[in-house]
C-alpha cells in the first residue's frame, strides 16, 4: 500500500496532518499499536521539521509485509552539519517553531529513537530527504 501526502509550508495549523492521516491508515490496517506509535512519532517530527525549516514538501509512505518505509522530501535550505543536528538540544529552529511546541532540538533524536533505520541526505541550498524505516514485529527483513 502506498500513500502520498503533500505537506504545505504556508499554514502552520496543518503541520502534522499527514502524520495523523498515516496513523489512522495504519490503524485501519490492523498494525499493532506500539509499531503505529513509533511510526507516527518519527514521521510527525520529520513533518514538523519540514514545515518549520523547509517551507513544506512531500511525504510518501509504503506499507509492506516487512515494514513501513517513509520518505520525506523537501527543497529547503538543507542541514549544514548533520552531526550537530542529531545532538539533543541543538536547534536552529525559528521562534515560530517554538510557538508550535517544537524547536528545542529534540526532533531528530526522537526520530532516531523510534525508527529502526533513519537516513538523512541533505545538501545545503538544495534540500533534504529523510528516510524512515519501521520494521514490523515478526519480520526478519533487515533494513536496506
Amino acid at each position, binding site marked *: 500500500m502506498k500513500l502520498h501526502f503533500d505537506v504545505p509550508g504556508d499554514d502552520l495549523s496543518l503541520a*502534522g496532518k499527514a502524520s495523523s492521516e498515516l496513523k489512522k491508515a495504519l490503524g485501519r490496517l490492523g498494525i499493532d499499536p506500539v509499531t503505529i506509535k513509533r511510526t507516527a*512519532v518519527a514521521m510527525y*517530527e520529520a513533518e514538523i521539521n519540514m514545515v518549520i525549516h523547509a517551507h513544506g514538501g512531500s511525504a510518501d509512505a509504503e506499507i509492506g509485509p516487512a515494514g513501513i518505509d517513509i520518505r520525506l522530501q523537501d527543497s529547503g535550505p538543507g542541514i549544514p552539519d548533520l552531526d550537530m543536528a542529531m545532538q539533543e538540544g541543538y536547534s536552529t529552529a525559528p521562534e515560530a517553531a517554538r510557538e508550535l*511546541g517544537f524547536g528545542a532540538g529534540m526532533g531528530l533524536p*526522537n526520530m532516531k529513537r523510534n525508527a529502526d533505520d533513519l537516513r538523512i541526505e541533505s545538501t545545503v541550498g538544495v534540500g533534504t530527504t529523510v528516510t524512515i524505516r519501521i520494521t514490523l514485529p515478526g519480520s526478519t527483513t533487515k533494513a536496506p
Partner: protein
Amino acid sequence: MKVSDIIQTLDGTLLTGDANLDAEISSACGADLMSDVMAFVKDHVVLLTGLVNPQAIRTAEMMDIKVIVFVRGKTVTKDMIDEATSNGMTLVATRFSMFIACGKLYEAGIRSGGMRERY
C-alpha cells in the same frame, strides 16, 4: 484516578463530550514542548499543557493520549475541539497554573510520570 476525578480536582471545565470520563489515568505529563511529550510519555496518561494549538492535539493523537488539560485558563479554539472529538479525546480547561495543576493531581494520587531511561 478517573478522568472525572481529574476534572473535579482541577476545578476544570469539560470542553468535549463525556466519552472518556470513566477512563482510568495512572500517570501525568506536564509539558509545553511537544517533543518532550513524545520522548517521555507512558500509557494511561493525562497531558497538561499551556500550548494551545492543533499540534497539542496531534501530539496527543500520535501518543494515544486521550485526555489533555489546558492550564493557565487558556482558550481553546473550536477547530481544536472538533479535531479532538473526532479522535475520541477529552479536552479540559483549568484556570490553575501548570505548577499548581500538577501539584493538585499529585496530591490527589497520580504519582507516576515518564522518566528517561538513560542520559
